[in-house]
């Protein structure tokens, strides 16, 4: 009996996640300014880096390339995901509250933000390589890393954005709450991507990949468990 009930809850959550996810996509597509805004934000940051490093005359080392790319991704992600709970006004939040379980809401937002981050990072890497070069040796590992990195950024930042949105939601709070928490993810991602640039044997990156997956899993589970408490208020 209990098992059947659990199963029903799970299928219900999956259904809700699906429809909420489509809702996010539709909403984003209809008000394209947010999407375009974040794209432009990323592109202009890349361009500023390109100009300020004076690449034409000096060039940058692979180490700098790598760190720069992920720092730009971190800042883009923070501002892209920070809005995931802001754009919902109070009344609509209340409406969701009556419709869907909190678990479905956080999961759909995480999945949606992951997709957003993944697309954003793909576009960013194209623009980035045009102006700053493309030193990557192991493409497969780099793109796996992009997916894992997007997942890590999206799980952590979505949860933090939920917390920050309850606390008046200023940009500073979002940054100070998320940056220290995101550091393990960023460190692992930077290390794996450095290995991809150098084309080191993939077995060497296994430790980092496993750690990154473990961090993602822990953070995801915690977001799933803790979000209902956040949502209640």
């Amino acid at each position, binding site marked *: 009996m209990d098992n059947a009930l659990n199963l029903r809850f799970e299928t219900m959550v999956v259904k809700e996640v699906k429809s909420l996810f489509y809702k996010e996509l539709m909403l984003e597509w209809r008000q394209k300014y947010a999407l375009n805004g974040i794209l432009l934000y990323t592109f202009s940051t890349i361009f500023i880096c390109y100009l300020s490093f004076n690449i034409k005359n000096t060039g940058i080392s692979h180490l700098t390339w790598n760190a720069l790319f992920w720092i730009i991704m971190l800042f883009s992600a923070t501002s892209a995901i920070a809005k995931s709970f802001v754009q919902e006004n109070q009344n609509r939040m209340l409406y969701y509250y009556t419709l869907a379980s909190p678990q479905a809401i956080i999961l759909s937002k995480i999945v949606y933000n992951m997709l957003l981050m993944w697309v954003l990072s793909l576009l960013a890497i194209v623009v980035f390589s045009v102006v700053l070069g493309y030193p990557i040796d192991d493409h497969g590992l780099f793109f796996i890393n992009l997916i894992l990195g997007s997942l890590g950024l999206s799980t952590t930042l979505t949860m933090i954005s939920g917390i920050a949105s309850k606390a008046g939601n200023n940009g500073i709070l979002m940054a100070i*709450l998320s940056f*220290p*928490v995101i550091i393990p993810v960023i460190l692992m991602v930077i290390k794996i991507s450095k290995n991809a640039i150098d084309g080191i044997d993939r077995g060497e990156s296994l430790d980092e990949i496993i750690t990154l997956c473990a961090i993602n899993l822990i953070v995801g589970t*915690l977001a799933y468990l*803790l979000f209902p*408490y956040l949502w209640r*208020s």
Partner: protein
Amino acid sequence: MSDIKKSWWKWLAIGLVAYTIVGGMLLEVPRLVILNESIRNLYFHVTMWFGMIVLLTASMVYSIRYLSKQDMSLDIKAVEFANAGVLFGLLGMTTGMLWATYTWGEPWSGDPKQNSSAIALLIYMAYLVLRNSLNDEQQRARISAVYNIFAFAAMIPLLFILPRLADSSLHPGNGGNPGFNYYDLDNKLRMVFYPAVIGWTLLGVWVASLRVRIKEVSLKLIDNR
């Protein structure tokens, strides 16, 4: 008489810390190259980290209990244990930097453990800022409890996994270095080290419990007015 029975652990804390200070300064320690007499800092630096972990874990446990019981006194305990943990973290960092100046040659050498602990402190300071930014009491308690649990989970890989994955570290037991046990935590050191860990941790709990009492009294005064 009942007071003494109830506060036996406070007497124990005083005794152990006094023993740590006297014994730590006077008892014989093994002679090692570079470390020399500075090995005595083991009783003050490493113990701070043990104390910090215990206090922050206690804070997280109180946060979990707050979420399940919604009792305000649990929230006060969570924040005060976090405060005491941050204090211990700062002290651990200061003693570590002093020690590093004389053994590694500079106060901050980018050691993975140093970096991780700085980040851990950032996390808990963010927790305290988050609390200040919320006005409603219930909401502050609930949201900061959520962040506290979340931050603690993020801190675990930071303190225990990443330093071990790092290529090089100056701390013993990391990055291919042998652990303290391997070469120098001999019995002479242990005789002071273990009591010191217990003593400092108890002292931290005492500090936290005093602050909890102050807060509870001031809350009562506000209510009565």
